[in-house]
């Protein structure tokens, strides 16, 4: 099965790479749909709801891009990808944008020829254990059986962490989050490790979330962000500035509720430029003047997205922490719109 996926992807890579090198923006417009790569299902980040509509934090970014480019947040074809298939899917042109809590690393950016357009979630790798094990620190995990989602940076972090602390472990590589859950819950693994946000999302789906704890150690830096193919800078710019628009909108207090009102003009030039009533930023991107206003109206600003899908009042229950605006002591900082 896996081999055929690779071979298929390879064939697609061989045949489609020529086409993919052309302007992605034109392709998306001609198609009338954005092909957006997401996870195969991670509550809060990207998962189909009861009606089969994709919903979540990463899904919100896909919809934001679709709203900016196609004027329709629903004009998105969501392509579920695993940790293993995501890069091939993007490189081959099967998807235009990958928003799949993917860690921005040097080799992915430089060697794999991708373009990370920013960071939409600052994360770190953590461990979840059942409370009854009585483990309070990851350093007590000597000899433990650890379930890992394969094809991610987590494997390398894990190997480094255990080597650094000179303790042993038994890795159990698992293809998807969904397959890892039953193994962990049945006790075939003592602990499950992935990004802390993913752990919170996974725990939210458990029957008894309070029986499991996320250990305090965060063993790596995981800046998660959307990415596009190397080489199409215009498309990269659109994705980068859609993300920045969402972040800047929160900073300036533009929300999905008041964006219509503010779009008729304010006395803050920064907001005016963002929403297209002043300057020609949209034109520079090859979009309409009100691209950012549409985006914010469709999915809300960064803070709204966060609170709606993964915030403290959701089952995932993540606090803003590092992901607060820079004005609140976090790392979210959009470059100026001018």
């Amino acid at each position: 099965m896996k081999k055929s996926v690779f071979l298929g992807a390879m064939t697609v890579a061989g045949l489609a790479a020529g086409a993919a090198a052309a302007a992605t923006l034109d392709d998306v417009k001609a198609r009338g749909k954005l092909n957006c790569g997401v996870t195969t299902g991670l509550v809060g980040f990207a998962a189909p709801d009861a009606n089969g509509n994709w919903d979540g934090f990463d899904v919100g970014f896909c919809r934001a891009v679709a709203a900016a480019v196609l004027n329709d947040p629903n004009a998105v074809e969501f392509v579920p990808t695993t940790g293993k298939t995501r890069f091939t899917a993007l490189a081959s042109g099967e998807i235009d944008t990958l928003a799949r809590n993917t860690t921005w690393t040097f080799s992915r950016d430089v060697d794999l020829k991708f373009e990370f357009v920013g960071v939409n979630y600052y994360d770190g790798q953590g461990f979840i254990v059942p409370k009854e094990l009585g483990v309070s620190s990851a350093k007590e995990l000597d000899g433990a059986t650890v379930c890992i989602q394969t094809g991610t940076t987590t494997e390398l972090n894990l190997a480094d962490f255990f080597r650094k602390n000179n303790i042993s472990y038994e890795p159990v590589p698992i293809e998807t989050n969904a397959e890892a859950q039953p193994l962990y819950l049945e006790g075939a693994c003592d602990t499950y490790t992935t990004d802390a946000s993913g752990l919170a999302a996974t725990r939210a789906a458990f029957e008894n979330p309070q029986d499991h704890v996320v250990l305090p150690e965060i063993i790596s830096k995981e800046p998660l962000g959307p990415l596009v193919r190397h080489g199409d800078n215009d498309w990269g710019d659109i994705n980068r500035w859609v993300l920045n628009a969402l972040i800047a909108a929160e900073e300036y207090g533009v929300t999905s509720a008041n964006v219509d009102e503010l779009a008729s003009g304010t006395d803050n030039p920064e907001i005016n430029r963002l929403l297209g009533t002043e300057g020609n930023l949209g034109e520079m991107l090859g979009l309409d003047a009100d691209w950012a206003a549409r985006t914010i109206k469709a999915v809300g600003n960064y803070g709204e997205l966060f609170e709606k899908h993964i915030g403290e009042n959701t089952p995932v229950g993540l606090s803003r922490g590092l992901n607060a605006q820079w004005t609140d002591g976090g790392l979210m900082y959009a470059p100026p719109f001018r």
Partner: protein
Amino acid sequence: MSTISDPPAESFRLSQLINDTRYRSITFQFVALVLLIFAMAYLGLNLVQNLAAAGLNISFDFLGEPAGYDINQTLIDYTSQSSHWRATMVGVLNTMLVAILGCIMATVIGVFVGVLRLSPNWLVRKLMSIYVEIFRNVPVLIWILIIMAVFVAVLPQPRDFRGDDATASMVWGAFAFTGRGFYAPLPLFGPGSAVVVAVFVASLIGIVFYRRHTTKKLYDEGVLLPRTWPSVALFFVPVLLAFFVMGQPITLEYPALKGFNFQGGIFMRNSLIALWFALSIYTAAFIAENVRAGILAVSKGQTEAAASLGLRPNRIMNLVVLPQALRVIIPPLISQYLNLTKNSSLAIAVGYMDLTGTLGGITLNQTGRAIECVLLLMLFYLTISLGISAIMNVYNNAVKLKER
């Protein structure tokens, strides 16, 4: 007098390539070959051009770099600092391990079921056909997943062995059957154990020679010597004598619950067991049909002739039918072995780190060298498969009908 003139000398004309049946097939094959070469060249060139356009190249240098990830089941020394090539070798060995174990078990089950499908007993016959129909008509991936899920859910986990109110306990204090795998005592070979091992090997050889001797005696002189008890005696007595004479050099290391897991002893992971078992019972269903076909291919007259000589049914099967059936069974059996080996690439579904899991999985993903990794994967699977074919063909030549 008549003169016979020579037939007109044939001059070759180009149109003969199409019109003459002697050349036509060669022409068509040649054209097809050229087209094929062009198609492959086009695809290859297209790939190279597109890679160049994307600024990528084909390079196998990554194989020498440290892999950076750990593998649970390693038959050779491996750490996360070993190279990707080493990780690949670990994967190759894991693939070969499960393939060889699977082929052996599938053959045993397959022959057993195939023979029983022809049983005169209605119930046994029907049960075996139900087995065959169920197992060969459900995809093997589903079997692997089901067996793993049942394995993990049904068997107790190490934590169930812990504490005063443990719900599970070890069998004879030596074996632990957990959802993570099976633990068994590991023999430790102390000084002097080489003698014991040598005696054991010598007695095995002795058993083979003794049995040959009895067969020869039976055929040449018609004297039937006892075979079972001398074999058993040869198996146990010298080894036990050597063991105690050398002062019990071989001891057992028992698995014990330490920390999160059992430590010590031999550990057989749940992923290996689930994969092995699933591949075996799935392939065995096909082998059973091959065996049945082979047996049915032996003329009924052979069975009746053997019976009229006074042979008992199991002797008829072993001495008359199966040796003749083998030449029908072996060729399709080779394909089944190859299928099993290739199906083992589904291992990642249960987290077994085979070749597809290491080279085609983590290495591919970490280095992003998809084309190189897939080419290597194809090369390795091709090599393993050709190896199995070669060995089985040698065996096939040994058992096939000798034509003189």
